[in-house]
């Protein structure tokens, strides 16, 4: 697969603390356009926090995140940094799409309504155009027949596929997937992973946090192992899973397998 050279996402020496616990200790990571990167690591390693920083759901203390060359979340002038306004943050958030562990579908809107909300209010598309985009994306995730169903009428796997369609329909530059199968019953995991795999094959740029090692291996161009708020090791999946260099990673993989 041909990869573009320019990095779409640049995370530079990112630091983040919750009270007195430092959860991110200078993370550096680049993701190129059309690249699929999976982050693995034990819980508490900071991988979900990293993703949430990229989507500006968390503030961070220092370092910076560049998306397509644009500094995200803060305006930096001289040595002062200021959090951007709600409006500016909203615009930047719409450049990335996020899929959550617990789906977070809007329960008062139908599947199509969930997808249309952002198209109508952020993209300001007319209703029928938003509707046809929603239907197109529902078709892509195999849920054409469920457009007018409410989330409570859908299975967990179907809900997560709607959430994926909701994120993708905004045509984001980068899609963040945060342990999207962790809340699913085992028999529903596969349908969601297959959906993500097809997105990856169609050239979406994905940054994935996952516990599914097999999936990370199948779908990613690159796998990143995080440990205690830092990136401990990264490389192509074959390297990471077949020939781990650090003993920590080897140990993590052993425990993940069992």
């Amino acid at each position, binding site marked *: 697969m041909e990869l573009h050279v320019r990095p779409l996402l640049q995370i530079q020496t990112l630091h983040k603390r919750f009270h007195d616990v430092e959860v991110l200790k200078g993370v550096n990571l680049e993701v190129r356009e059309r690249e699929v990167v999976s982050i693995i690591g034990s819980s508490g390693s900071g991988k979900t926090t990293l993703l949430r920083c990229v*989507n*500006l*759901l968390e503030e961070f203390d220092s370092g910076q995140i560049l998306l397509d060359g644009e500094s995200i979340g803060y305006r930096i002038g001289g040595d002062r940094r200021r959090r951007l306004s*709600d*409006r500016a*943050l*909203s*615009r930047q*958030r*719409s*450049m*990335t*799409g*996020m899929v*959550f562990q*617990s*789906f*977070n*579908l*809007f*329960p*008062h809107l139908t599947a199509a309504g969930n997808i249309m*909300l*952002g198209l109508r*209010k*952020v993209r300001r598309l007319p209703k029928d155009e938003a509707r046809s985009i929603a239907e197109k994306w529902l078709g892509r995730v195999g849920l054409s027949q469920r457009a007018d169903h*409410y989330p*409570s*009428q859908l299975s967990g796997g179907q809900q997560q596929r709607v*959430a994926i369609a*909701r*994120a993708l329909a*905004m045509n984001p530059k980068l899609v963040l997937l945060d342990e999207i199968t962790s809340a699913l019953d085992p028999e529903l995991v596969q349908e969601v992973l297959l959906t993500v795999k097809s997105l990856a094959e169609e050239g979406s740029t994905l940054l994935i946090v996952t516990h599914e090692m097999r999936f990370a291996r199948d779908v990613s161009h690159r796998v990143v192992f995080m440990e205690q708020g830092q990136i401990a090791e990264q490389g192509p999946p074959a390297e990471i899973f077949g020939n781990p260099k650090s003993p920590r990673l080897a140990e993590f993989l052993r425990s993940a397998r069992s």
Partner: protein
Amino acid sequence: METFFSELWIARDALMEGFVRTIEASVVSILIGTALGLLIGIVLVYGPLVVRLLCRAYVDVMRGTPVLVLILASFYIPSVVGLHLSAFQAGLLALILFCGAHIGEIVRGALQSIPPGQTEAARSIGLTFPQILTYVLLPQALRSILPTWINTGAELVKASTLLSVIGVGELLLKTQEIVGRNFMTLDFYLFAGLLYLLVNLGIEQAGKALERRVAVR
């Protein structure tokens, strides 16, 4: 029984007038009170600290004070500070302030019980805070407060009887006046009671119908 009906016929205009006043007071106070309550509820959750504390104080004072005291206070106080309200306006003011505080507390609870994931998901597709409030949070909150809101409506109909104490000619005061003329105390108080009962049962039924319509499918 026959005398009751002939007396009822004689009193029909006064009763009708009182009944209309009762409905008017209830409807106006629930509508304005709800608008006020929505604002208060939103401020109680998302407002800046100082405004939030002021709203909290307002809500706690209103909820800790008997409605009759609120009505008497808003009847007597405005005139000494140079504001001239009719008895009806003063009564409405008290009912609105009372209703606003209750609804505000209910809205606060409803907003706080919405999972944070809803706001996060809305943010991640790029909605601004006012948009999140309008399209994601309030629709869910309003749906969950519906039963309590309808109940507040019935409570206001009942509380409107207290306006009789400051001389507002609503149903109960009209009934008292009628009883003062014909001395048919039991009959006419029961009749008034029946009207209140019917109005509130009507509200209850309408509320159930409304709940069925907006139930999350």
